[in-house]
């Protein structure tokens, strides 16, 4: 096809709106000062603004179910059309791109070459390493090989979903194809982990938009997750938390207690050990989240959650947590591992509420004895 080679830049946008080149330079002088840069930087800032393009994004799909892409396109704010037309240039993605085969591969190669060091690499899916990586090939090449090539020129990598962040379902016991997460292979790039099976739509687009708007990687916790979305346990932001604190639990599905919306902890809820935004953002533009719809959390944003089961077992019965542990003790153990600002905040909050919590735990344990008898 024939297309204009002209790129739309801030300069173009201003000219289009009737401003002159002189107006543009005034704007540059102002913005340079505003950014706290030396006056000698004006020409460099002007150059950057003249050549500012939409952020190129390469989206690789390896051992995955495409659920993360599906979640991404569910985004309500911004809607996905606005992202891909206005904020980023999605130069490669199996799921949505028009071109196939060599046409698709050459589009990727061209973008990676032209934007070397500047593009964002998004990875959906885990990478099989067993037997030379033959268990996932695209265009005749292994996922391992492709990942190494795509990562080399990336400014940063976003791992969407628990598969690329942690290995996911294919890495669950016995991990038949030797699946590993991205950070097991790529060690020299910033990696933003956005776990979840899948992650919440607006969390995914939020991470991309953060980078597009602010030009920086969002602040991450010690294991690489954006704090703004993964800083709280589902348990801490759950609207059913007061029932937990009061020791009011549903013991069976469709029971009177379940119908009243009591806490699902005894049905295996993983909220107390799961860091995610479900409680405060909810899903599909705030419609609901599993607990609100009556289902215990399965902890899908946590490392190795598939093997931390059965999901029906409540946490105290799972080996590793101790038979007599309470959910809050478990929470503290996990908080200790995760460490970080949010964790300290949560602990501080818990200390302040200690008396209240102690009482509710005692009543909860009393309640449990009653239920177990």
């Amino acid at each position, binding site marked *: 096809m024939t297309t204009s080679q002209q790129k739309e830049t801030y300069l173009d946008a201003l000219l289009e709106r009737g401003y002159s080149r002189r107006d543009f330079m005034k704007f540059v002088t102002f913005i340079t000062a505003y950014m706290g840069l030396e006056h000698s930087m004006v020409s460099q800032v002007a150059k950057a603004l003249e050549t500012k393009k939409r952020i190129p994004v390469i989206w690789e799909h390896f051992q995955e179910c495409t659920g993360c892409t599906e979640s991404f396109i569910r985004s309500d704010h911004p809607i996905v059309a606005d992202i891909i037309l206005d904020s980023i240039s999605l130069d490669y993605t199996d799921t949505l*791109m028009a071109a196939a085969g060599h046409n698709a591969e050459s589009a990727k190669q061209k973008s990676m070459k032209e934007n070397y060091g500047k593009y964002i690499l998004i990875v959906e899916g885990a990478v099989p390493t067993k037997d030379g990586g033959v268990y996932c*090939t695209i265009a005749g090449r292994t996922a391992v090989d492709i990942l190494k090539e795509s990562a080399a020129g990336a400014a940063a990598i976003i791992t969407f979903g628990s598969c690329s962040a942690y290995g996911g379902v294919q890495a669950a016991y016995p991990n038949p194809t030797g699946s590993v997460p991205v950070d097991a292979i790529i060690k020299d790039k910033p990696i933003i982990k956005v776990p979840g099976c899948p992650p919440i739509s607006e969390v995914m687009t939020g991470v991309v938009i953060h980078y597009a708007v602010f030009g920086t990687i969002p602040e991450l916790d010690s294991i690489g997750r954006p704090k703004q979305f993964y800083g709280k346990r589902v348990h801490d932001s759950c609207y059913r938390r007061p029932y937990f604190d009061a020791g009011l639990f549903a013991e069976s*599905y469709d029971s009177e207690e379940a119908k009243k919306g009591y806490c699902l902890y005894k049905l295996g809820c993983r909220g107390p050990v799961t860091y995610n935004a479900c409680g405060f953002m909810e899903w599909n533009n705030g419609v609901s989240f599993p607990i609100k719809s009556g289902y215990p959390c399965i902890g899908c944003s946590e490392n190795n959650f598939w093997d931390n089961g059965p999901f029906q077992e409540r946490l105290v019965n799972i080996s590793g947590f101790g038979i007599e542990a309470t959910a809050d003790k478990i929470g503290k153990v996990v908080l200790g591992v995760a460490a970080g600002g949010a964790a300290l905040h949560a602990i501080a909050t818990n200390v302040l509420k200690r008396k209240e919590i102690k009482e509710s735990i005692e009543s909860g344990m009393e309640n449990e004895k009653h239920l177990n008898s």
Partner: protein
Amino acid sequence: MNRIVVDPITRIEGHLRIEAKVENGKIVDAYSSSTMVRGMEKIVEGRDPRDVWAFVQRACGVCTTVHAIASIRTVEDALDIVVPPNAEIARNLITISHAIQDHVIHFYHLHALDWVDVTKVLEADPKATSEIAQSISKWPNSSPGYFADVKARVKKLVDSGQLGIFTNGYWGHPAMKLPPEVNLLAVAHYLEALEWQKEIIKVHTILGGKNPHPHFLVGGMASPINLDDAGGLNAERLAYIKHLLKQAHKFVNEVYVPDLMAIASFYKDWGAIGESKFKNYLAYGDLPTDNYRNPSSFKWPGGIILNGDLSKVHPIDLENTSEIQEFVYKAWYDYSVGKDKGLHPYEGETNIHYTGPEPPYEYLDVEKEYSFIKTPRWKGMPMEVGPLSRMLIGYASGKEEYKEVIDWALKTLDVPVNVLFSTLGRTAARGLETKLLADWGLEFIDQLLANIKAGDTRMANMEKWDPSTWPDEAKGVGYMEAPRGGLAHWIVIKNQKTERYQMVVPTTWNAGPRDPKGQMSPYESALLGTPIADPANPVEILRTIHSFDPCLACAVHLYDKHGNHVGRISIDTGCAI
């Protein structure tokens, strides 16, 4: 001889590779290969059967829900659990809202760019587009100004030089036939559909807590009904579901179906291309209006059509070991009984043995094994599954509503009935099915409201939730109709754990490699005779392959690295199907 390789086939779920031989501008031979495997069935062995839905649901995030529903039905069949009527309806609402959403996405976002030239939008007159839009539909977004804005948006994208997902598309290809104004209409609705699809799927969020991958429950649904508390489905939640279904009904009838008919009218030649060779069509059936155990109540009837003969629908028995069998003749697996034998899923083995070329490679050795997909057969015959199969079986079963929409479409397009057996027929059947689904969604929500009004608020049967109530050994089969076709799972439960698990999925039927008799599965045979105008840009391959709506991650999930022999299980119990 010119061998074309298309890898990756994009705008699908998963990793699919097509190799085709072209002579004198037509495909004379074709090979369909899946190049990714994970090992789902192996991973669920030993797990709690009540958890398996969550694992196998991750077989696919595009057809999210379908494997979960098949799985809970499989476990319920094994344990002889009958779910309450409200749970049956809730599952139907999930299946319907998903199928509608998935079919719309398929049409606009996965299939349309095979037929629509985005760059031709720049030549379109928005006023003329507006006139076309208003002549085919009463959808309100149809003013000249509206289409002018869309055109300006496309122009801005093209002028930026960064085409993003539209880079290297098949623009200006001789097979593209739409006038600029219809291209503009299609692109406008591409954007609208992208925004709308996130709405209908909220039915899943209400009933299952999230989408993709809503939650499910063996025995019913965990979302309780309580009109007097915010803890469950109350008047607000139920009204929300109905509102979404009404919205969907409008979108399907005023956008999707009119666009489908408008675009199809320019591509009638594709009514003679892409027929799968054997014209055998299979559906298990689904959407009970009474109970899953009463197939005669299904909105989607099950059965088999052989050789395009619409005068007879043959019955199907999922437990009869001589009916459904899977072969590995040209697949990267071994069987202890030899590579030329077929095995029923209850006896199935999954011993991977990759014999393909060492990556990186240019061509597969198609004389040897060439895919991670097995080859299912019904009584030794290849079968096509999907919306076309369901529409044909409904039609052949004499169901009036099927007859009505099919006859209307044939008349509107002025084409004979045999056009259904084609690439165009497959794509049209998907849209016509969506029209029926939109009607049924409203019927089912009204039925749920009527049940609640009559005092039935049960959502789950928990009598056999506790594993101590289970027999030491049990086996079962569960099925459902996924957007892409009939889906069935088989389980053997031993000592309260999953002993064996097998899945035969829609894309396995359609995309499998050849069987020991050399018979092609639908993808391969449908490509034969397809014209290729430009071997360097084979958009025609995409048209036919996309008409099946491939889902590869579903199709490949088998694995046993060390070739462990998986013991045979004798069939000695009956299950109600």
